[in-house]
């Protein structure tokens, strides 16, 4: 490794894989960890202390559903004491009375609530949970009432793409500062459900136009961030801002990973916090160093002027589509395998779009969509 390793800025803590929802697009791994594999409070707190020492300034408390951890307030307090910015990423379903206020008191800085649809039937269909939409609305109101800034996160795909204008209305109605229109990234459960989730080209074009207009019209009123759809792109995204460059994530059992899907890359061995310190992992883990910087790149990335803009794209997407984690992300037009993206869109268009593999701890079982609530 010739490149200097900078301290990490951000950390995503997946506190648990448990969740009341079963979203078909969930980015968690298909093999979910049960509650008995989760790290205890003291281990998380000690990890957070080490993260702060290492230079982490922002921690996203996520899952699964992080509020299923009764010790969440203790963790927030520990982070707040160290001046680390805390962001709760929640589904907003089943949060007990008084808890949001307690988290605000503990020093929570920001809340992000996901909405699977802009309307109840869609939210219920995608997350396979009746009544979830109303609960999310209620949670959002409680978050604002507690004086916390709010982001609405809308993971977008075939079954809700035409609701993008309604997501914008929803975000304004709920007094959010920020709306994230995030085209689903095909990893984890979303990869398993790719054929059912893939949008068609015209819908993507309409979506891009709606978002572009909203960004213009709502400038200074609502921030509308857009996570672009890789399969329709010309250039890849700088996944995680570059492999092990300024952020990392931790699975419920303490496994420290460069990104969500890194576990899908064979031959990489990931360390668990506790077996090694966070600093040892960040600086010395062979898996973290495998794709750090630009040294590992082959052509066309190696000689490309964008290599420090997108860092060659997503290693897990290269693995999933090119069969080689060190290849150029096939989302890139310069990849010799770029045509595969279009072929995969075609394949999805020709297949059954109504069979979902809902996210389950026991593993995938194909099911027909939940009937709309009457």
């Amino acid at each position, binding site marked *: 490794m010739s490149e200097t390793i900078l*301290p990490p*800025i*951000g950390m995503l803590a997946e506190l648990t894989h448990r969740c009341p929802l079963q979203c078909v697009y969930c980015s968690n791994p298909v093999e979910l960890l049960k509650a008995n594999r989760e790290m205890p409070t003291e281990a998380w707190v000690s990890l957070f202390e080490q993260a702060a*020492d*290492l*230079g982490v*300034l*922002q921690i996203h408390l996520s899952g699964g559903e992080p509020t299923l951890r009764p010790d969440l307030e203790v963790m927030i307090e520990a982070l707040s004491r160290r*001046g680390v*910015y805390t*962001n709760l990423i929640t589904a907003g379903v089943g949060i007990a009375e008084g808890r949001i206020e307690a988290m605000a008191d503990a020093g929570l*800085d*920001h809340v992000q609530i996901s909405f699977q649809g802009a309307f109840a039937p869609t939210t219920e269909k995608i997350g396979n949970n009746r009544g979830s939409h109303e609960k999310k609305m209620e949670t959002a109101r409680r978050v604002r009432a507690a*004086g*916390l*800034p709010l*982001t609405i996160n809308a993971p977008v795909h075939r079954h809700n793409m035409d609701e993008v204008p309604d997501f914008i*209305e929803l975000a*304004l*109605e709920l*007094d959010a*500062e*920020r709306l994230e229109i995030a085209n689903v990234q095909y990893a984890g459960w979303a990869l398993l459900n790719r054929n059912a989730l893939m949008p068609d080209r015209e819908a993507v074009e309409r979506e891009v136009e709606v978002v572009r207009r909203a960004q213009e019209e709502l*400038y*200074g*009123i*609502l*921030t509308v961030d857009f996570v672009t759809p890789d399969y329709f792109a010309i250039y890849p995204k700088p996944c995680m801002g570059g492999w092990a460059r300024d952020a990392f994530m931790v699975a419920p059992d303490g496994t420290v990973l460069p990104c969500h899907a890194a576990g899908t890359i064979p031959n990489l061995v990931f360390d668990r916090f506790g077996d090694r310190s966070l600093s040892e992992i960040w600086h010395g883990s062979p898996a973290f160093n495998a794709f750090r910087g630009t040294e590992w790149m082959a052509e066309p990335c190696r000689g490309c002027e964008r290599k420090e803009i997108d860092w060659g794209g997503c290693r897990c997407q290269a693995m999933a589509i090119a069969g080689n984690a060190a290849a150029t992300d096939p989302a890139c037009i310069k990849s010799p395998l770029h045509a595969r993206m279009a072929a995969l869109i075609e394949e999805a268009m020709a297949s059954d779009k109504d069979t979902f593999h809902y996210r389950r701890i026991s593993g995938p079982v194909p099911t027909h969509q939940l009937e709309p609530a009457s």
Partner: protein
Amino acid sequence: MRPQRERAVVSANSMPALKPHVRLQYDPVRGAWALLSPEKVFWPDEVSLDILRLCDGKHTVTQILEELAGQYEAPVEEIAADVEAFMQEWSDRFLVTL
């Protein structure tokens, strides 16, 4: 349905303040000041820092300009446009209230 929300526009009488849940904080690991906000960390330069420190909800824009003009030994008219542009941008990014 949609509550009437409007873009805040900076004026001479605005009293800019860091939004609650936006923090200006010294980072000992990097030896630099960081502006922490939902989702993003900013690294303000010296000039931005001087302005941000005066965004305390007690100074009007006019007073901030006078103060900065003193610090930089430059006439108010010379710095006003830049300083106001900074504030407008921070307001649009939900970092300060006006």
